[in-house]
């Protein structure tokens, strides 16, 4: 049963497709970004500076308050019991021992949980945030192995944990769909992404492939991954006397979560306030899962505040991860290495209760100028925890397949892999036909190759040795699209003492957003950074701004531009005829030195203080929304990177280790060189984990995760991470706010393939199945 309506998505997709044609043909000036953001020209402000994170000192001194640290009177602490079958029903649940255990306030099961509406699943509507649309503890049904079946509230965490261990649950298991092979036999379905089918055809790719003189046909597999942000998913919440719900959460979608909680509890959206000032990493996982809903339900039952912090195991049971993929890539080329066909098709896993299929063909859509394409994603539905997005969903694993295949082709043709990529550089987007807004990947390749010392690579695999280690170099293209979701908004409040406050429901998950956006606001308003207060992480603030899809920078940027333009208009009105600015139009005015000036005549200037004083105002506050993000239907907008890895493989044991890495990026203008470098490096480290070690052990017999801990689920430790060099073109994208495209996810793309290709160069072994563990190299 699909609670979520795929047909509705399909219909939305058709409307969008129709609109896309019209927008593609519209004149530039009608489209957001058609007129470059004036800040792009400004080169001497705060933008680009390596400003240290403004919240750094608070964090290292323990003064930044995270969701599970807010003190509340009369708090109760929650623990959960998770199902041990994948599908079926609870036949018996014995809670008497738990109820009488010391300190227990209440034990909640489906028998006494408040009645709730099913939460709308993420992306099923614009404000939806839930991991899936399943009813939460409403009956005895079990939908996945790990589903919460009981919540204990107690006076201390230890008492809650103990009482939870006393609950006994009996199940009647039904046959569950938890194996790839069985699910495939039942039939696969067309996958969609944001409403559109994940299927593209240009020309007759099958035919071109059949006729080509050189071809690669290989299947690549990637495993399931789980989210492991350092901060566990925690929430502190309580109901107020007026029936409203106050939530301190770890969040990357505060406004979406407030809306979805309101829908679930059948109350008005305004009655739910979600704040999240600090987040210890999200990567796509800090959205709404059952634990927040259950915490709120239990709080209502107990009439007490609740703190619920998932254990690390709990995160694996309740918070979805990245689905496994099986991807077949076929490449066809001429003798000169021109691609005549790219076929990239495959299968992934989803649940029937959410709409997220790992869209691994996205990068392939616009990376190379092949003559023909056949791209497709199908999925099978599992009885499992709803999967979700994890850093660069689609691109992270899709580029592993595509870029490994490109390396195989380069080898087959005897052409240098960088040269092969450059030969297939497209003039316009090969599938949409749109012009690129800004694409300088060739420059990234050339400068990166020089810096890395690519010319020292021996193209013959297995020939370079250093003591007991086989040494190899590999490269791959990184790419991630520019996104901007609809729904942004911002409020700017300017006061006569020369300070400005920006309010947006945006997020700081540790990546430096608040710092970089303070730099941007300072330049935009012509104020020093110290004069800017940037408020975020609060669902009562304007905007529906997701910290995901690397789109937050653009979304905040466009929202602040809209608010700024409105502010300038209002100020010009207040300035009136006695001002040096009299007669100027909004678009003729910019900011400098705490005031407004004519863009062409900077001496025509008046300070904000002076304008406000004359108008006898202490403050002025405006709020505005940016136009719809039509720019992505008018230009093909993407970030790029050239990734270089040097790998050592132990000649005796096969242990693979990365000894050097360089990422050369083309991501538009870099807003803060320090936080950006950290983002790139962080993505590359996660990509290193994807290449060499990350893997969820999902026991298909039971649909159960068997390594829900950081000791058994391997992510890179310090010794696995070599010196990582990052560099960038810093060429502004003329059609993006501030000239900047997002940088949060691109680092993990291409990295897996660069490492796999280096392993091949070192050993002559092509590993097409991630992670590349030593047993595959022995």
């Amino acid at each position, binding site marked *: 049963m699909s609670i979520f309506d795929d047909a509705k998505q399909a219909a939305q997709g058709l409307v969008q497709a129709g609109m896309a044609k019209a927008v593609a043909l519209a004149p530039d000036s009608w489209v957001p970004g058609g007129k470059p953001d004036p800040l792009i020209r400004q080169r001497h402000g705060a933008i680009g500076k390596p400003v240290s994170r403004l919240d750094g000192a608070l964090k290292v001194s323990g003064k930044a308050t995270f969701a599970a640290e807010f003190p509340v009177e009369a708090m109760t602490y929650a623990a959960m019991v998770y199902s041990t079958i994948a599908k079926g029903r609870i036949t018996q649940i014995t809670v008497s021992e738990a109820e009488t255990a010391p300190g227990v306030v209440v034990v909640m099961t489906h028998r006494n949980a408040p009645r709730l509406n099913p939460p709308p699943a993420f992306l099923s509507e614009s404000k939806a945030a839930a991991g899936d649309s399943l009813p939460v503890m409403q009956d005895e049904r079990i939908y996945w*192995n790990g589903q919460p079946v009981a919540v204990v509230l107690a006076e201390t965490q230890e008492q809650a944990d103990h009482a939870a*261990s006393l609950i006994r649950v009996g199940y009647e298991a039904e046959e569950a769909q938890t194996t790839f092979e069985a699910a495939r036999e039942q039939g696969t379905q067309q996958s969609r992404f944001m409403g559109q089918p994940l299927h593209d055809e240009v020309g007759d790719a099958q035919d071109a492939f059949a006729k080509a003189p050189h071809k690669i046909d290989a299947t690549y597999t990637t495993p399931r991954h789980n989210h492991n942000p350092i901060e566990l998913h925690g929430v502190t919440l309580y109901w107020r006397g007026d029936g409203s719900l106050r939530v301190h959460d770890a969040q990357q979608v505060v406004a979406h979560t407030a809306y979805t909680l309101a829908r679930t509890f059948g109350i008005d959206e305004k009655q739910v306030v979600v704040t999240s000032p600090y987040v210890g990493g999200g990567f796509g996982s800090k959205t709404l899962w059952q634990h927040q809903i259950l915490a709120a339900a239990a709080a209502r039952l107990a009439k007490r505040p609740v703190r619920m912090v998932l254990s690390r195991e709990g995160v694996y049971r309740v918070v979805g991860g990245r689905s496994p993929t099986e991807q077949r890539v076929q490449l066809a080329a001429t003798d000169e290495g021109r691609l005549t066909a790219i076929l990239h098709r495959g299968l992934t896993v989803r649940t029937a209760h959410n709409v997220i299929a790992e869209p691994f063909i996205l990068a392939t859509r616009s990376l190379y100028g092949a003559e023909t394409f056949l791209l497709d994603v199908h999925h099978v539905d599992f009885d499992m925890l709803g999967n979700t997005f994890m850093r660069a969903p689609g691109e992270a694993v899709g580029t592993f397949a595509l870029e490994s295949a490109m390396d195989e082709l380069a080898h087959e043709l005897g052409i240098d892999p960088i040269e092969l990529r450059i030969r297939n550089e497209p003039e316009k987007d090969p599938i949409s036909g749109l012009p690129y807004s800004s694409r300088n990947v060739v420059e990234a390749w050339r400068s990166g190759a020089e810096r890395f010392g690519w010319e020292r690579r021996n193209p013959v695999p297995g020939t370079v040795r250093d003591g007991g280690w086989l040494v190899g170099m590999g490269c791959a293209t990184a790419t991630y699209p520019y996104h901007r979701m609809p729904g942004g908004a911002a409020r700017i409040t300017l006061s006569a003492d020369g300070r400005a406050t920006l309010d947006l429901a945006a997020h700081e998950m540790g990546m430096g957003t608040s710092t970089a956006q303070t730099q941007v606001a300072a330049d935009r308003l012509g104020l020093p950074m110290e004069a800017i207060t940037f408020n975020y992480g609060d669902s009562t603030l304007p905007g529906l701004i997701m910290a995901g899809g690397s789109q937050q920078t653009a979304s905040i940027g466009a929202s602040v531009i809209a608010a700024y333009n409105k502010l300038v208009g209002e100020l010009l009105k207040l300035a009136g005829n006695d001002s040096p600015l009299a007669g100027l139009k909004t678009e003729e005015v910019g900011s400098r030195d705490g005031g407004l000036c004519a863009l062409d005549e900077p001496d025509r200037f008046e300070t904000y203080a002076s304008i406000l004083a004359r108008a006898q105002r202490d403050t002025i506050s405006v709020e505005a929304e940016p136009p719809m993000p039509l720019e992505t239907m008018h230009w093909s907008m993407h970030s790029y990177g050239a990734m270089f890895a040097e790998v050592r493989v132990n000649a*005796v044991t096969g242990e693979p280790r990365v000894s050097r890495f360089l990422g050369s990026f083309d991501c538009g203008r870099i807003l803060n060189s320090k936080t950006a470098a950290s983002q790139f490096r962080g993505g590359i480290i996660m990509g290193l984990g994807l290449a*060499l070690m990350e893997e969820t052990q999902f026991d298909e017999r039971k649909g*159960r995760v068997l*390594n829900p801990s950081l000791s058994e689920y391997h992510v890179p*430790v310090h010794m696995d991470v070599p010196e990582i060099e990052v560099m960038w073109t810093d060429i502004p994208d003329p059609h993006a706010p501030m000239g900047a495209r997002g940088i949060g996810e691109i680092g993990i793309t291409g990295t897996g393939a660069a490492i796999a290709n280096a392993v091949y160069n070192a050993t002559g072994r092509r590993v097409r199945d991630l992670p590349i563990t030593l*047993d595959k190299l022995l």
Partner: protein
Amino acid sequence: MTPFKYTRASDAADAVRKGAATGVKFLGGGTNLVDLMRETIERPGELVDVSGLSTEIVETDEGGLRIGAGVRNTALAEHRRVRTAYPMLTRAMVSGASAQIRNMATVGGNLLQRTRCSYFYDEDGSRCNKRVPGEGCDAIEGFHRGHAILGASDACIAVHPSDMCVALAALDAVVHIEGAKGARTVPLVDFHCLPGDRPDIETVLEPGDLITAVELPPMPFAAASTYRKVRDRASYAFALVSVAAAIEIEDGQVRDVRIALGGVAHKPWRATRAEAALRGAPAGETAFAGAAATELAGARPLADNAFKVRLAERTIVSVLCELAGVTA
């Protein structure tokens, strides 16, 4: 976690007295026991802290070392005599866990740490003969890439995870025990058990037995010994295979040799067959490879851990070549 009482033993006799009651467990650094208590796999009613009892490392009259059971892993690894006379032990220690865990963990606790088999840890959701004898073993047809290739049974294929114990097995270490019936010693190689049909019985200890020390006999040729750990990441991972070895060569012949393997069995695996094959043989790759093959001839791998057989052989050969100064 189940509520428990915490007390401290004043001396070994006090510990043995307290330990005799049912539901009592000794506490070392707690890095393994407390984890297992959190998972409710262990539910002691009382913890008797013995970590402060015997924290000294002293030289024995014979010229060996007597290491108190309460010595922290870091202190043992750093000890000057250990580093010079038994370097394989230092290498084994520092390749285990993380610096923080080693600062807490004791020698006694390290000997008794339990397997990391995922099904053993999954108390709610999986069957495990080690937790519930007779229940079945979910690992045999499940994830067993890290599991045993030597000495396993139909009941259990788990491995002993310790690095330290592999070196101790190679160094002929002896475990000092105090129990209700007095003091006794057991060679380390006989201390841990193979799983047989009772994988819940992991050592020869009787209920209430206290480990007081581990003794290393003098072994001059161990001064050039080493430990090699093969794992899935550069640090903070358990061994897929590890090799502790020392070799004494005279006139190109192997006079004496010690080899122990980790990550391959329910106990630290002393490679007695390989050692026997090597004594008196010419020190060279051919003999090393032959000896390794002899030892691994008894391997019974499963689908996903078959690679360990070759890995163990190759690692043994490589380590011996390195110690013998010959190229592989």
